[in-house]
């Protein structure tokens, strides 16, 4: 079908530093090396002709089923043909201490299970998002593709003799019952390439699965929808950039929110907006090192722009993320293909609430704040005190004119409220507490006077409007008002009426400065579910959750959005916010029904 596969057909593998998307047909269509936010080696998902891919599939007609090895991010795909069955196990390997490992490595193990299956593979690396011409050579008998400071080896054992063609290295072989073949791509960046042995590759593949299982065994969640929650935390773990502790919003860039549309963004950055949910999920699931690492990264990254916050930061802590377009054809013609994100420089007042709430959750989990961080948090509250009256672009980063978004004001209120609590407990300086208290009161008055519609009995999207926005649910989830507050209950009811369609909840209706429309935003569905649970409607919430959990693809992953008409995935994937919202909703329902 037009050279592209449905986004729902992608599974993701990773090693804590980079991620790859593998389609159900065995094609690695996305791989950014050496880091999650680096330019790609394979990007066929964004341009099936120029992006590059690593195909591995039966030559005969087949059906495919797949799963993650239990408790791991190692993918197992089973191809069944008329002549036999073959199993492919894919992993981006985690280094072990037994051998000299390449800087990065993709290993694919092929096992014949029954009969005999003719297999074909093709490695077509395209460095720099397909922009740089690869140069094929041989080192110690192994085909090596180089480009500038990068090199990829193509190691094959029992998988046919690699044959160079004009633009790829290809081969064929038969996977007979009881046989085992291995394909490995070692990678080097600004260093000599390490060419591994077959034994080392297989040992690292097994070590990788064992390491993931060990990590998953340490997770503490025992509530409802356990499988979905554990898969979500494994997906989230893939988005943790281990060298810095940052958490990427998604593993990909420019997968469209509307097929053929222009809503194509780069999500390989860490959004402050997601920070409170992220820390909460880490704490609730017993991921203490990840929680500490993330909080430290957050406070480091925001230091350079302090007291202002950028909407997002790069995974290395940098603040600049200039937006550029690439000359790729885009997923099914969805252009422009963007890298970088211009939202970085927007004013988003809700982020201040998210940051202080994150620090508040961090202290609630028993951690201490050092003097520098305490001082900066107090200065953040000072900044909110003087800035909350400005219009902003809101949580959804609209590209239309700034407005007084209600959710932004609510999060400013949260920032001051949490700062006051921290100050009261002696955790941050309290010299300006009276001013924070005064401004908190002023925000509440503004929100209640201008952001609540008496006619509709709901908080509205922005001051003096009649529009609704699912982001308002975050006011409830972060504690702007008690769940018993009639205005909050009215808001939940109004959102249900205006934005819910079956299990799907839209973000908002109305213009946002970008052409086209979008699918249903999955995080909003989970937020709505959690809001139901918190407002005493736990049975309804559980029922909705039962509809939402099966919306994941066959390996339990979610993208950012879903087309309600077709069920197709839209937007970047796997999307951290969708998985975070699932975890939060499951925990809340578990708590409400306990």
């Amino acid at each position, binding site marked *: 079908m037009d050279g592209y596969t449905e986004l729902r057909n992608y599974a993701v593998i990773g090693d804590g*530093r980079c991620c790859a998307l593998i389609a159900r047909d065995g094609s690695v269509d996305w791989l950014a090396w050496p880091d999650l936010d680096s330019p790609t080696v394979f990007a066929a998902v964004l341009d099936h002709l120029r992006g590059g891919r690593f195909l591995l599939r039966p030559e005969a007609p087949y059906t495919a089923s797949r799963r993650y090895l239990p408790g791991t991010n190692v993918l197992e795909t089973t191809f069944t043909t008329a002549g036999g069955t073959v199993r492919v196990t894919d992993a981006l390997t985690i280094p072990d201490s037994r051998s000299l490992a390449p800087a990065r490595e993709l290993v694919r193990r092929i096992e014949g299970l029954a009969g005999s299956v003719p297999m074909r593979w093709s490695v077509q690396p395209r460095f720099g998002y397909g922009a740089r011409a690869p140069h094929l050579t041989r080192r110690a008998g192994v085909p090596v593709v180089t480009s500038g400071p990068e090199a990829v080896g193509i190691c094959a054992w029992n998988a046919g003799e690699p044959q160079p063609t004009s633009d790829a290295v290809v081969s064929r072989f038969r996977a007979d019952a009881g046989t085992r073949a291995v394909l490995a791509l070692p990678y080097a960046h600004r260093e000599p390439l390490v060419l591994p042995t077959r034994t080392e590759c297989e040992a690292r593949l097994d070590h990788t699965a064992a390491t993931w299982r060990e990590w998953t065994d340490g997770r503490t969640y025992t509530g409802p929808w356990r499988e979905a929650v554990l898969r979500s935390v494994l997906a989230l773990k893939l988005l943790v950039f281990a*060298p810095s*502790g940052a958490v990427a919003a998604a593993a990909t860039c420019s997968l469209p929110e509307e097929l053929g549309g222009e809503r194509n963004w780069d999500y390989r950055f860490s959004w402050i907006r997601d920070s409170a949910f992220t820390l909460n999920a880490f704490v609730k699931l017993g991921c203490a090192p990840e929680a500490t690492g993330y909080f430290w990264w957050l406070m480091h990254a925001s230091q350079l722009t*302090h007291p202002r916050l950028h909407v997002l930061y790069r995974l*290395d802590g940098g603040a600049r993320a200039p937006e550029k377009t690439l000359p790729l054809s885009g997923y099914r013609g969805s252009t422009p293909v963007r890298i970088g994100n211009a939202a970085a420089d927007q004013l988003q007042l809700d982020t201040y609430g998210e940051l202080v709430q994150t620090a508040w959750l961090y202290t609630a989990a028993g951690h201490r704040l050092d003097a520098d961080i305490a001082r900066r948090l107090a200065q953040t509250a000072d900044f909110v005190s003087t800035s909350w009256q400005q219009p902003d672009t809101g949580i959804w980063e609209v590209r239309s004119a700034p407005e007084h978004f209600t959710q932004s004001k609510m999060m400013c209120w949260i920032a001051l409220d949490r700062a006051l609590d921290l100050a009261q407990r002696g955790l941050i300086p309290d010299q300006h507490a009276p001013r924070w208290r005064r401004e908190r009161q002023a925000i509440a008055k503004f929100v209640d006077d201008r952001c609540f519609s008496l006619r509709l009995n709901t908080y509205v999207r922005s001051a003096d409007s009649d529009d609704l926005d699912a982001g308002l649910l975050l006011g409830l989830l972060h504690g702007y008002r008690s769940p018993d507050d009639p205005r909050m209950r009215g808001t939940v009811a109004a959102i249900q009426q205006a934005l819910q369609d079956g299990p799907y909840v839209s973000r908002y209706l109305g213009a946002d400065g970008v052409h086209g429309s979008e699918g249903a935003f999955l995080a909003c569905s989970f937020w709505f579910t959690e809001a139901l649970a918190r407002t005493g409607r736990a049975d309804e919430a559980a029922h909705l959750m039962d509809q939402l959990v099966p919306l994941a693809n066959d390996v339990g992953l979610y993208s950012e959005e879903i087309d309600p008409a077709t069920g197709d995935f839209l937007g970047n994937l796997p999307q951290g916010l969708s998985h975070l919202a699932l975890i939060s909703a499951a925990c809340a329902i578990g708590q409400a029904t306990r």
Partner: protein
Amino acid sequence: MSIWAALAGGLVGTLVLTTTLRAANALSLTRIDLPFLLGTAFTSDRTRAKALGYGAHFINGLIFALLYYAVFVAIGYSSWWLGCVFGLVHGLFATTALVNILLPLVHPRMGQPETSAPHVALLEPPGFLMLNYGPSTPAVTLTAHLAYGTIVGGFLAWPA
């Protein structure tokens, strides 16, 4: 030229270097914090790390001053401007190799390109020229080291 002059120059030079970096930090020019980077090698308690880090940083400053002294003695000449040149070399070494490559290798809490799941770093890696800590970081670090080298060279060239 004496060891005592080297130690005195090292002490004053480190004071100026640390103050320069701290001021640049307060002005949001960089996120570099050498005492913090050093101290967290010993503890994950942030407050204690900074205290330990300052101690370690001053000791390092004295050791480097002794190295300058050794080179000055070997070539039989010392001056403030040669100290400035040494400071430049010292700064380049610090930003390209010492803090970027060598420190992550021995620092249990600092990330490096090889850090992978399931581990997670507490400190982001500095990157080439420590650019991960902000685009002005190389300039600030080199300036601070130029000042350090000039001061050490000046103390060692001071007439006895």
